């Protein structure tokens, strides 16, 4: 009975969220590149590349109405910029879904344009963006963009979800020994991270200190990976800035928890001739400071981005093969292929979360490991 009530509540929330989304018109600009149907291979490619990037508004779907106007269903997100004139905030709806710099927004005496999901501040006096031959803006520069983009929105969403779920699990232990309901699914996952990732890689003595971080990162990446597979179209873990931040967290943790023998092995490797030691120190330092975090951030970013590109390309078959296979054939082919690749992506979503957490645990384990044999 409780489950039924819960699921009813869930659907009510979803429905409210959908009704709350506003339908707002796109820019009246007729040669707006972002608008219009996707109907050629070139446009499919453009669409995919656009999707893989972060975006400043949350669009669920778009359509063209009877008057030939492009409509976007979704909601705008706040834009927060640190400009030459201090903090500037406005809603993303002011760009009217334009993404090639044609719509200029004026705030605080400054002009802003959005090109490929990046916000540019126009030089003083300029009223329109000018491009050189390689399509770089010549009279504008990028600003520090702390906007609540779609990715940041996703991070908030996952953060809130995780807090609700795991706070719920924590609360249940006060009343009973074995959790019930959804928390019963979460408990073995927590145990899994603790017993299969943290404990064996860090060691019985130190694992407890780092389990909190590892659990957070594991569920954060996993849930975001899975969200990326939903039609909501998040691509948070495919943003290199996000994976870089995650890798930097791991880097800082293992640098600051490294013990004497860890640093000893990096800077003055025992057991090798003295002349080789400085060379080894350079290699070890590069490995510890650069290669390890870089491998972490690139692996996650590349896997998730590639997954999104492959799934969308396979869906794109529906359009690109329409001419040679007919509408039904190309749709069927696209459906079958993208269905199976999505199944694989569900596995990859878990796998990448696992690998990131596992390697973080391993690196931390190497830093706190005690060498008794010296």
């Amino acid at each position: 009975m409780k489950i039924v009530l819960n699921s009813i509540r869930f659907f009510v929330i979803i429905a409210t969220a959908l009704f709350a989304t506003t339908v707002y018109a796109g820019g009246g600009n007729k040669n707006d590149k972002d608008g219009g149907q996707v109907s050629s291979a070139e446009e499919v490619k453009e669409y995919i590349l656009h999707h893989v990037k972060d975006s400043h508004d949350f669009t669920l779907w778009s359509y063209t109405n009877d008057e030939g106007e492009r409509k976007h269903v979704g909601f705008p997100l706040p834009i927060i910029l640190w400009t030459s004139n201090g903090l500037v905030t406005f809603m993303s709806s002011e760009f009217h879904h334009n993404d090639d710099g044609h719509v200029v927004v004026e705030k605080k005496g400054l002009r802003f344009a959005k090109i490929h999901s990046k916000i540019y501040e126009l030089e003083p006096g300029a009223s329109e963006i000018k491009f050189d031959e390689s399509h770089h803006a010549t009279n504008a520069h990028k600003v520090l963009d702390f906007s609540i983009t779609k990715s940041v929105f996703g991070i908030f969403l996952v953060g809130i979800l995780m807090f609700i779920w795991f706070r719920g699990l924590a609360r249940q232990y006060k009343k009973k020994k074995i959790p019930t309901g959804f928390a019963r699914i979460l408990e073995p996952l927590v145990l899994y991270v603790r017993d299969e990732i943290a404990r064996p890689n860090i060691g019985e003595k130190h694992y407890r200190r780092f389990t909190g971080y590892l659990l957070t990162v594991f569920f954060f990446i996993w849930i975001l990976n899975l969200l990326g597979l939903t039609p909501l179209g998040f691509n948070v873990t495919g943003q290199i800035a996000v994976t870089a931040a995650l890798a930097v967290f791991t880097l800082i943790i293992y640098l600051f928890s490294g013990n004497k023998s860890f640093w000893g092995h990096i800077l003055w490797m025992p057991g090798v001739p003295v002349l080789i030691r400085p060379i080894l120190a350079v290699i070890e330092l590069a490995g510890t400071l650069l290669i390890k975090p870089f491998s972490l951030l690139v692996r996650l970013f590349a896997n998730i981005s590639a997954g999104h590109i492959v799934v969308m390309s396979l869906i794109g078959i529906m359009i690109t093969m329409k001419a040679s296979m007919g509408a039904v054939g190309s749709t069927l082919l696209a459906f079958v292929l993208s269905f199976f690749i999505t199944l694989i992506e569900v596995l990859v979503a878990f796998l990448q979360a696992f690998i990131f957490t596992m390697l973080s645990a391993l690196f931390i384990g190497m830093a706190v490991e005690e060498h008794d044999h010296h």
Partner: protein
Amino acid sequence: METLLNDFSPGLFAMQTVLLLGLIFLLVKFAWKPILNSLNDREEGIKNALESAENAKKEMQNLKANNEQLLKEARAERDALLKEAREIKESIISDAKEEAKEVAQTLIENAQASIQQEKQAALSELKHQVAELSIGIAETVIKKELSIKEDQLELVQGLLEDVTLK
């Protein structure tokens, strides 16, 4: 590489760092710590329960072994008691038999002795009576027959013969 760097958004990096830091802090404080503590407590509890069950089992075994030992001892004692009782019984019986035999022996001996005595007494009585009778007979015979000499001789002769024959 250039596009990668171009895609990198410092703003998003900063937002992610701040949000993740906040999330880690909140979750560690409100979720992970209580969860891990409860899990640890539960595991300790299970471990202790298993250990005490094991101990109880061992104790039971000890108790059982003790009981068996006691039973064995009791049985042995009972056997010993029974054996002793049987021995006592046998010895009593044999003693009684011995005594009875002895008593019987003495009784028989006494009886024999008294029979002998009685016989002796009877014989001597008989001899006395026979002598008296003989004297009586002899008196009467002598009174009646001593008048005839031949008869006297004959009689004496006869008497003597009888006497010697005896």
